[in-house]
């Protein structure tokens, strides 16, 4: 075990205050309810194309992002991006309106589910090409170091993406140049229908940086406090100028890869077992109750979040589509 794993095992779970735990719970619940609603809107034909839900993986984005400094750190991910944006506190209305392709959407309806960005929140997308965000994230980290702004980049990618060549090109340069970046592999067990063991010679993804001397940490991605504890270790290491860290977050997606999914590559029992025994939200909820939170208070929270999500859905349904002239805007920034 290397130093980071030792540091993590010394304190595997973050000692959250009651307020912190409550905040994590609320954020995870917001993602869950938002995604459930997005699934419904998709069924109604209000959302089109590819729509990848984050249900089951909520603890990853919430735990990791809570350790970042929003004023200086940047985040980048792939197409399964709604959860990361919500964890960043971006307004659910503009996210949902993007999913429905409306002018009020965060990308003015021109990006869709897979392509959302918020420069204001230092959220750099939202990328549809599997693995691209890893090199782009290394570039964001390069910019942090170049400007000496003290920031770091967190680049999320999947277990499938982890087999892309450019990931290793980026690992090499990030380690060589000691870029301030945390590589986060969200190992949800599958890349579309391909189970990790059918695609990967080394299934322990945290070891994938070993050839580049990048320290790795395996993390239980179904426990928000464990995720946060690992994030703290990683952030401290990277912030100190030591170069990249690789986190493997073991997690699970309950829903299909995208909205159309044959659900033939894994058993119903496997999914049910994860939902029943490892759900990150249930887990946090139990912990809150153990700390004395009442069932009524938790119900109130759920109600409030449902209302927020309903308002977002109404907004997304009722706001206008982009005006046809928008077709031609933002192709280039300047006119020549």
């Amino acid at each position, binding site marked *: 075990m290397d130093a980071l794993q030792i540091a993590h095992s010394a304190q595997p779970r973050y000692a959250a205050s009651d307020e912190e735990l409550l905040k994590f719970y609320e954020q995870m619940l917001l993602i869950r309810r938002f995604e459930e609603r997005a699934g419904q809107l998709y069924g109604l034909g209000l959302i089109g194309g590819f729509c990848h839900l984050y249900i089951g993986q909520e603890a990853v984005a919430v735990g990791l992002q809570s350790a970042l400094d929003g004023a200086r750190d940047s985040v980048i991910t792939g197409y399964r991006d709604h959860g990361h944006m919500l964890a960043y506190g971006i307004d659910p209305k503009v996210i949902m309106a993007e999913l429905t392709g409306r002018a009020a959407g965060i*990308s003015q309806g021109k990006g869709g589910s897979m392509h959302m*960005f918020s420069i204001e929140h230092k959220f750099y997308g939202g990328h549809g090409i599997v693995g*691209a965000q890893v090199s782009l994230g290394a*570039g*964001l980290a390069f910019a942090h170091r*170049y400007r000496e702004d003290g920031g770091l980049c967190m680049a999320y990618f999947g277990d499938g993406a982890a087999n892309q060549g450019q990931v290793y090109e980026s690992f090499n*340069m990030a380690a060589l140049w000691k870029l301030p970046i945390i590589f986060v592999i969200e190992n949800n067990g599958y890349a579309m229908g391909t189970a990790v063991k059918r695609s990967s010679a080394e299934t322990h993804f945290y070891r994938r940086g070993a050839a580049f001397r990048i320290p790795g940490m395996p993390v239980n991605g179904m426990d928000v406090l464990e995720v946060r504890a690992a994030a703290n270790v990683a952030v401290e290491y990277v912030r100190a100028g030591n170069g990249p860290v690789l986190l493997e977050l073991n997690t699970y997606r309950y829903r299909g890869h995208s909205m159309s999914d044959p659900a033939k590559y894994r058993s119903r029992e496997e999914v049910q077992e994860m939902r029943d025994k490892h759900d990150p939200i249930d887990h946090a909820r139990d912990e809150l109750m153990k700390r004395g939170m009442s069932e009524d208070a938790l119900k109130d929270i759920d109600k409030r979040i449902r209302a927020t999500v309903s308002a977002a859905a109404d907004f997304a349904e009722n706001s206008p589509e982009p005006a046809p002239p928008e077709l031609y805007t933002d192709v280039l920034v300047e006119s*020549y």
Partner: protein
Amino acid sequence: MALELKMPALSPTMEEGTLARWLVKEGDAVKSGDILAEIETDKATMEFEAVDEGTIGKILIAEGSEGVKVGTVIATLTGDEGVSVPAPASGPAKPASAPAPRKAPATEVKPEAKPAPASKPAPGSNMKTVTVREALRDAMAEEMRRDSRVFVMGEEVAEYQGAYKVTQGLLEEFGPKRVIDTPITEYGFAGIGTGAAMGGLRPIVEFMTFNFAMQAIDHIINSAAKTNYMSGGQMRCPVVFRGPNGAATRVGAQHSQNYAPWYASVPGLVVIAPYDASDAKGLLKSAIRSEDPVVFLENELVYGRSFELPEMDDHIIPIGKARIMREGSDVTIVTYSIGVGMALEAAKVLAEEGIEAEVIDLRTLRPLDRAAVLTSLAKTNRMVVAEEGWPTCSIASEIVALCMEQGFDDLDAPVLRVCNEDVPLPYAANLEKIALIDAARIAETVRKVCPRKA
């Protein structure tokens, strides 16, 4: 018996070079394989190796001599049984104390007949002669001085001084933070450059040649070109991807392709392909300042050519504007990059036959200066497009389509294309020559659309 040691050619196209350094002196005994001297061209340094045993007789060309013609006797060697003259060593030369290029790229620049400067200097401005290579370097250096966000990254751009010496001297002036050697990982470093631009910097990403950028084309197109649109105008990507493009000399199919039509087909990119030093400098400076991602296509065969350039503090050429290189009334030749030199040569030949050709250099391929093309067509009513590249789905086909769609009434003859042959570029010298366009072919194509003058 004395053997003559002659100035070697480092490549099939080299005509002259600099005798940089003698590593032996008169009277030294040498054996086969010993390094005798270092020979330099504008692009490369090579070691000159002895093939025979013997004693160095007279050194006839002093070290530091420039412009030594290939074949000039530079020293004599006395030996027992002389055989042949030394050959250039294939191994890399030892680095000099200052960061110096260590290895020659496979090909050599041949400065061709120097075309006249295209644009007349503004009255009163001093002109100086520079190579395209120097103009590109100066553009980067000036922009790096002006804006601390600008940096250059790529393979061999720093310590080696650029595979084609385009980044020569930048490391010395700007240091390793801003002049960055990358590993040979085009996909990865194109992504890093693109991400750095998204993060607020102004990267210049050099590809050793654009042939290797095919490994990076995903980031150029999917990441750099599309993000501003996909983000509703939030996320800019002011990156410049630059490097040599098109056929070089005798490097075969994988190293000889013109990618201009590929990139020019993509909305969200600016694509520039300059010809002379003034455009190389002025357009590269504009590219670096642009808020948009730019693909900047250079040409290795033009790097060493010299042109006049106005001496100005800030020589900027606007993106998106074609220029008339030569006025004419009978026919228009539309071209870009290395094709401009050939078209001007063809125009000269045609003028002797009484055909006055107008030559248009597109300069920017996206956005295309359609107005310039159509205006010239309206004037001459005949057009030929000359392109050093394949004919199918080319810039030439685009110009032909433009004339059909928007210039039909001005056409007195079909618009013809003169492009490379539609084959991978062969290695054999004779086949290569047949495959590539030249001035004669351009002139011949122009004659087809021009009525015979009496």
